[in-house]
């Protein structure tokens, strides 16, 4: 089974975020980036399917030069090849323009399955997988918790709301978005890291894909959200904090 897995690079979870002068994105200097955590579950699922059924795993990512690191990590974990769609202004694209670009690059590949994470920890649109399916004319299923390949089709466990699940079947080729927690993503081994150095990362500029990208939406500005509640911060030594908090919960909020 040949699998294309989409991986995105996002600011690290604990990176201090400052808004850049444009007011529409964050300042990228001095912060570290990491692979979008939901995508690590998609990558792991792709590697497990390959181990079971054979085939090839191709990791694709879009963004500036730094994104190569995320592709390298995927290769170190066991992906066979990488594709880097280069675009310094990737963050300014809308979900549809991003998906159109990825679809154009993926179209050139021979694949049976495309996997993405559930959503990205930066924009959080959660649309890429579903859009890829529509743009490539493929069936899809989202929020997947288990994949069983049965010949030319898949049997999938979809997560629904409030603790419900559903089995669905769909024919290959297809696109799936993977729910976080479906597996335990592996760490790269030293051997894997060494082997990754010999693996190919094909770079292609987004412009060269010839995708028209009229934006359907635009971020006017980003800002620290307005507080809806006034938070009373309690300070002191742990002992003092505990005493003050219990006092407030008992006599002010009357909930203890």
């Amino acid at each position, binding site marked *: 089974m040949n699998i294309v897995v989409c991986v995105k690079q996002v600011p690290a979870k604990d990176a201090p975020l400052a808004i850049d002068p444009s007011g529409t994105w964050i300042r990228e200097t001095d912060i570290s980036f990491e692979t979008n955590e939901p995508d690590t579950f998609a990558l792991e699922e792709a590697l497990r399917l390959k181990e079971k059924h054979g085939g090839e795993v191709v990791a694709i990512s879009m963004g500036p030069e730094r994104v190569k690191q995320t592709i390298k990590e995927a290769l170190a974990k066991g992906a066979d090849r990488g594709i880097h769609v280069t675009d310094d202004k990737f963050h300014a694209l809308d*979900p549809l323009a991003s998906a159109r670009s990825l679809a154009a690059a993926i179209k050139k590949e021979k694949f049976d399955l495309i996997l993405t994470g559930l959503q990205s920890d930066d924009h959080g649109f959660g649309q890429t997988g579903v859009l890829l399916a529509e743009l490539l004319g493929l069936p899809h299923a989202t929020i997947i918790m288990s994949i069983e390949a049965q010949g030319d089709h898949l049997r999938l466990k979809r997560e629904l709301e409030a603790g419900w699940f559903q089995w669905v079947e769909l024919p290959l080729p297809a696109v799936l978005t993977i729910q976080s*927690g479906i597996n335990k993503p592996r760490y790269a081994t030293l051997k894997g890291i060494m082997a990754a150095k010999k693996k190919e990362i094909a770079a292609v500029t987004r412009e060269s894909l010839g995708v028209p990208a009229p934006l359907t939406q635009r*971020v*006017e500005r980003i800002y620290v959200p307005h507080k809806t509640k006034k938070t009373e911060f309690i300070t002191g030594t742990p002992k003092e904090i505990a005493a003050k908090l219990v006092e407030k919960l008992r006599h002010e909020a009357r909930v203890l």
Partner: protein
Amino acid sequence: MKILLITEQHDAKWNKVSFETLAAAQQIASEAKGSLSGVVIGQGVAALADELAAYQLDEVVLIENALLEKYTPDGYSIALKQVIEQAKPDLVLLPHTYQVRDFAPKLAASMGKGMIGDCVGYRYEGGKLIFVRQMFQGRTAADVIFQGDAPWIASFQAGAFRADLAGKKSDGKATVKSVSVELKPEAIRTKPLELFREAKQAVDLTQAPILVSVGRGIKAPENIPLAEKLAKAMGGELSASRPICDEGWLPMDRQIGSSGQTVSPKLYLALGISGAIQHVVGMKGSRTIVAINKDQNAPIFEIADYGVVGDLFEIVPALTEEVEKSKSS
């Protein structure tokens, strides 16, 4: 402005978030002096259309088809595309449910349009509609506007509007218009099979008056008893954010959030929980929220009544001791 609201039902039972989005749609329609139509889609759902018609809207559109009895992304996208092309709305609004996430981007793209999803609010300023959504896991908000021609498609997050504010008509009912759609069985590629619940819900967290909830900040499974002790001292239950259950440190039935339980206890203690949207939607209705987190910029503090910026491994044991002391006094 012509607004089309798409409601959600399963087995002829409402997904209640539909009424939150109805409240939002009514508000936008009144501010923008627009009209509002509500869509009910499925099979055997005429009674729901009739129920919706009692609310303040201009018209209810009922789409019924045997192939729409069970939800599929193909069936819903094909059917709704026909309805949208016929009704020609400026704005299509949906509740941001798991199901909407599954089909709405596809529906929009099938018309060459984009979708602004998971909005937490909107502003109507000088004839311009601005949608507010969260980015970076709630650490920043973003004002987003549509570009290009209508229809524009947007969805609102659960809890962003109050369902009880959805206005009913003072008398009479809106007309219910049945619209037929053309749908072929072979166009539906996914086969929906049975629905099921995994674990027996051993604990019903919705009934607990006090919840002590742990997030990534608890760091390791061996630290869970720290929170458990506090929960016990307070007479509450232990709960968690999704990553903790994903790791298997606590069972899935202890999970609070969009994929777990939605709770509104009188006291909710968030220990080492950053406050990602998916968690917050499950607990923001709590009467009193206490957050303990080492990161003073964690979004959880936006909804906390009491906040402590500090090391939970120092504060929680002190708090447990203090609670025990106050109970015995």
